[in-house]
């Protein structure tokens, strides 16, 4: 937690269980690091060390969205412990030379890249404004988008950065409105994301001009019913075209338990134990190095959506993203529906990911 605010909060409850593997595989415990972004890095490191040295785990995995991910990354690489990250989009986690870390979530720079690709296909030459909060994750998304805008022959509109702890965006929304862009990409942190979205709508920006690089259930509901028609990027949604039978069951079970549909975060957490299990079975042993090699060679699919899972030499996921358009919403019932409007897959290094974000 920075003094000026909680780093983007994301929900991790679904990750805490790991119950799909019944407590272990091949006699080795499968334990999940419970770390949120309130945890101090020292404590995150102690937890990693405890799992490594005390519990002798095969692999560390944990929902880590803040700097803690980087802290554990350093530990994993230095001490040669496999580290499978379900939800953390920092490109640095798989920078060239990475040996032991694998990232299930595509890198944030790529999300920005994909926005430009999405707009390029929707409206060639469109003018894009960017409004983002000054957090590492948001900066990375903006960097990818800014890189790709000229390459996709799009026009760059106003770019506005908000410091951590901002609360009002009226003026900036007015400035953006005055520049009449075709699309506004909104990348706010936490509740401020809702404030920017709503203030843009207040000023007469149309919902279908607004693109959020990512949307998970609570923040989609936070934008409110007025934002029906707007777009968001995601890696799993209950309204995807390709949800499998297992995916439908996962959605139903999750909704029954939590009163809302799951989003991509919960899906990554659901997928993680499955990936671990696959890799262990392929390796046929619980040796850390062999397990790591098996992960590197893994070619499988998400059981919920059929999206391919494969890692490159640095442990980065073969990237993909969906763009959805919200079609209806009932905030009180915690329900929304959306339709899939765009899907793409790409190799992480089609853009200079590791140069755009240091």
């Amino acid at each position, binding site marked *: *937690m*920075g*003094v*000026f605010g909680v*780093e983007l909060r994301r929900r991790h409850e679904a990750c805490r269980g790991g119950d799909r593997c019944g407590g272990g595989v091949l006699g080795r415990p499968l334990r999940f690091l*419970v*770390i949120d972004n*309130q*945890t*101090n*890095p*020292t*404590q995150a*490191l*102690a*937890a990693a*060390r*405890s799992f*490594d*040295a*005390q519990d002798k785990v095969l692999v560390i995995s944990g929902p880590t969205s*803040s*700097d803690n991910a*980087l*802290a554990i*990354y*350093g*530990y994993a*690489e*230095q001490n040669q412990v496999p580290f499978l990250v379900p939800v953390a989009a*920092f490109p*640095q986690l798989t920078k060239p030379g990475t040996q032991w870390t694998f990232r299930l979530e595509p890198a944030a720079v790529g999300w920005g890249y994909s926005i430009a690709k999405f707009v390029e296909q929707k409206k060639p030459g469109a003018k894009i404004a960017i409004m983002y909060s*000054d*957090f*590492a994750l948001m*900066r990375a998304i903006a960097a990818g988008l800014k890189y790709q805008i000229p390459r996709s022959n799009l026009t760059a509109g106003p770019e506005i950065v908000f410091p*951590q702890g901002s609360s009002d965006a009226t003026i900036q929304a007015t400035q953006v409105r005055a520049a009449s862009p075709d699309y506004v990409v909104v990348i706010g942190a936490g509740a401020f994301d809702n404030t920017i979205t709503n203030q843009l709508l207040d000023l007469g920006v149309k919902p279908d001009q607004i693109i959020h690089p990512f949307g998970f259930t609570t923040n989609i509901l936070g934008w409110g019913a007025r934002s029906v028609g707007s777009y968001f990027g995601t890696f799993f949604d209950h309204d995807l075209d390709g949800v499998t039978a297992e995916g439908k069951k996962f959605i139903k079970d999750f909704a029954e338990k939590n009163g809302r549909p799951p989003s991509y975060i919960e899906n990554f957490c659901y997928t993680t134990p499955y990936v671990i299990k696959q890799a262990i079975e392929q390796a046929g042993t619980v040796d850390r190095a062999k397990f790591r090699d098996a992960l590197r060679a893994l070619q499988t699919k998400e059981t919920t959506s059929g999206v391919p899972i494969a890692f490159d030499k640095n442990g980065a996921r073969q990237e993909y993203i969906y763009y959805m358009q919200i079609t209806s919403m009932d905030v009180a019932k915690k329900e929304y529906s959306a339709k899939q409007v765009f899907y793409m897959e790409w190799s992480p290094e089609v853009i200079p990911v590791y140069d755009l974000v*240091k």
Partner: protein
Amino acid sequence: MNRMRASKDMWLWISGAALVIGLALATAGNRFAAFIIGIVFLNVLWTAGMNLLYGYTGLVSMMTAGVAGIGAYGTVKLFLDYGWSFWFAVPVSAVGAAAVGVILGLPALRLRGFYFVLSSLVIQVALTLVFIYFPQFTNGDTGITQIPRPGLWLPGFGAVDLTGPGFEIILGLLALAGVAVVYMIIRSRMGAFIIAIREDDLLAEELGIDVTRYKVMVFFISSLLMAVGGAFYAVYTGFISPRSFDVLMSMNIWLMVAFGGRGTIAGPIIGSAILVPIPFLLQELYQIKDIFYGSLIILVTVAMPAGVYGTILKWWRVRRQKQNTAVAPVAIKRMPAE
């Protein structure tokens, strides 16, 4: 008498050194326990600095974490980007950090009581922002990861392996040295003066003590201890980020001193030894960590202003006085004869 004290002290330090080396070696087989011990040692060093500042001089500084951060970032920059030897980078960046701390803190040192606390808090917040918003030096809010442990070559030993218990031993000796520095200061003239400043700074000034000068000196020395601790923290944990050195760290260091017993040599050591391991050992209860710490802060302030060790000392003193009274009652005030 003095020689006796000196020799007694010598034995104390030697057994202290034996204790930290023993602790480091005893936990060598368990890297998790060793890590806790290592972090305790670092905190002993930090609380020694805070104790000098808060316990003995009465300055509640909330910018100690920021100073430690400057020491850490400075060392890492020199060590990694400029290829300096770690052992050379530490003193340079520690002196630099302490100088920056003094320059930032100097105007605030003129202020008294609450206004000093608040100024130091503002400086801490500003330093955190600097760590976040100057990514070319700090890598911003993602932090710097994979900081390697330095190597060490000792005459007579050759290259020493610092990936194992070697580093915990160094941290332990460092902590001991920090405590010894504070101890020696307290035994000196300067110690008497800073205690006088804590008790009544106006009276101290009236007695001819240059209050500002001593406050600055104390601030410098304690900043030095903080910064050295920060530098070793960076290479020990291998990771630093703005959150490693945020205001909560300043508060926690303060809490360890207050909880253990401010203005005593042993108090902050006891405070660190009790409070540091708790969040590591109770990881399952991480959610109530904040509530626990908050309650402890209030409890110490309301019920135990002297801290654990201070309360024990007081109880001991009262007991001894009672015994003395039994032997020879204190004379009632004797009216001087005309």
